[in-house]
C-alpha cells in the first residue's frame, strides 16, 4: 500500500498560501505579518512599497550622496514601518511609511559627517580643545571657561569659540564611537553602560521627555536619563561613561533630534487617523 502523502508544512515564519502573495490584498498581508510573523507576506509588502522608497530617495538626489545608498537607507525605514505598522490605527501603510522612510534618510545625512566644509586647521583645533577640556576639568575641578581654554591652547578666545562652533558641524555621532576624532582610546559606550536590561529599565520612569522614548536606542535613553532625570551635568555624564564632555553634548543633541523626529512621525500618523487616541 502506498504511503499517504505527508501534508506540506509551511516554512518557519510563513503561512501556506492558496494564492500567490502578489495577488493578496494589502490588508490581508498586514494581518499575516501581524498574526503569524509571515516572512513571505512581509517580503511582498516591502516589494510593493519599494517604488515609494525610490521616489522619496530621489528627492535627495542633489545632496551629494548616491541615490542607490539613499534607497538602501530608505528601505530600512520601510522595513521598520512594515514591522511597526498598527492595523488598528485606521490609516494606510503608505501614510505611516512615508515619514518613517524620510526620517531614516534624514538621519543618514545627519550621521554622514561634517555637514559643512570646515577648514582643516579649525578641525584640528577642535580636536585639541576636546582633549584640553578633559585635562582642564581634572586639573581645575570644574569645566573650563573659554578664557581658560584659550590660555591653555595659546589661541584667542574668538578662535576657541569658532573652533567649538565648528565642532557642531561634525554630526557623525555614532553612539558606538567617539566622534570627531577624539576619544579614540575610550571604551565603546556599549561596554560602559552596563546591561541592556539596565538601559531598558530607564524608560519605565514616570516622567519622560516624550511618549516615544521607547523608540530610542537604549544607550540614547540612558544618556538622556542621566542628564535630564538624574540631574547629572554633561561633565558628570562624560566621567561616568568615559567619553568627552563635547561628545556627550553631541549625543544629547542627537538623541533629542531623534526623539523629535519620532514624535513628528507619530503626530503625522495621529493626524492622518483623524485625532489623538493613544500614542
Amino acid at each position: 500500500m502506498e504511503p499517504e502523502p505527508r501534508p506540506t508544512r509551511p516554512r518557519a515564519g510563513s503561512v501556506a498560501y492558496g494564492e500567490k502573495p502578489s495577488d493578496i490584498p494589502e490588508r490581508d498581508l498586514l494581518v499575516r505579518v501581524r498574526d503569524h510573523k509571515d516572512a513571505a507576506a512581509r517580503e511582498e509588502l516591502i516589494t510593493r512599497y519599494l517604488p515609494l522608497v525610490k521616489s522619496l530617495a530621489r528627492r535627495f538626489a542633489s545632496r551629494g550622496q548616491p541615490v542607490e545608498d539613499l534607497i538602501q537607507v530608505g528601505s530600512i525605514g520601510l522595513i521598520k514601518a512594515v514591522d511597526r505598522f498598527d492595523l488598528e490605527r485606521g490609516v494606510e501603510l503608505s501614510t505611516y511609511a512615508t515619514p518613517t522612510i524620510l526620517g531614516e534618510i534624514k538621519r543618514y545625512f545627519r550621521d554622514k559627517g561634517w555637514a559643512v566644509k570646515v577648514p582643516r586647521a579649525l578641525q584640528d583645533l577642535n580636536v585639541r580643545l576636546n582633549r584640553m577640556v578633559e585635562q582642564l576639568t581634572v586639573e581645575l575641578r570644574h569645566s573650563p571657561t573659554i578664557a581658560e581654554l584659550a590660555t591653555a591652547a595659546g589661541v584667542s578666545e574668538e578662535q576657541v569659540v569658532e573652533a567649538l562652533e565648528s565642532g557642531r558641524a561634525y554630526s557623525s555621532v555614532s553612539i558606538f564611537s567617539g566622534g570627531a576624532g577624539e576619544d579614540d582610546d575610550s571604551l565603546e559606550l556599549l561596554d560602559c553602560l552596563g546591561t541592556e536590561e539596565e538601559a531598558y529599565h530607564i524608560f519605565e520612569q514616570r516622567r519622560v521627555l516624550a511618549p516615544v522614548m521607547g523608540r530610542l536606542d537604549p544607550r540614547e535613553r540612558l544618556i538622556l536619563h542621566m542628564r535630564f532625570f538624574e540631574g547629572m551635568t554633561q561633565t558628570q555624564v562624560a566621567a561616568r561613561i568615559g567619553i568627552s564632555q563635547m561628545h556627550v553634548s553631541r549625543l544629547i543633541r542627537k538623541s533629542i533630534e531623534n526623539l523629535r523626529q519620532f514624535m513628528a512621525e507619530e503626530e503625522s500618523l495621529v493626524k492622518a487617523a483623524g485625532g489623538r487616541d493613544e500614542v
Partner: protein
Amino acid sequence: MLRVFISGFACRHDLPVDRLDDVQLAVETLLVEEPEGEGELVLEITAAAGGLTLHLAGLRNQGVKAALLATDPFQPGEDCLLDVRVLLDSLVDGYRVLDVPAGLFALEMDMRAS
C-alpha cells in the same frame, strides 16, 4: 550665529563650557518649536551677579507656553513635540514665562556661572 553670540557673551562672564552648551541648547530647544518665518525673535543677554540672564521675546508657540506653565503631566501635540519643561528644568537654573501683548510671550532664563 546665535550660538556664537551666546558664546561671545559667556566668555566674558566666565561661564564654563558645559554650562555654555546647556544654555545654547535651551535657546535652540525653544527656537526649534517656533513656527518658521513668522515674526521677529529678540534675544537679550544681561550679566547678572555670578551669571547670565537671557530674555527671549517674540515667542508665539502657545503649545510651548502651555507646556512650560503646566502642572499636569506633559501631553504632546503637533505644536509641542517634546516636554520642554523637563529640558529647561535641567538646562538652566531658573526660568519665567512672561506675558506680552498680541498673543506673544517671552521667556527669561537664569544661568549661574557655577
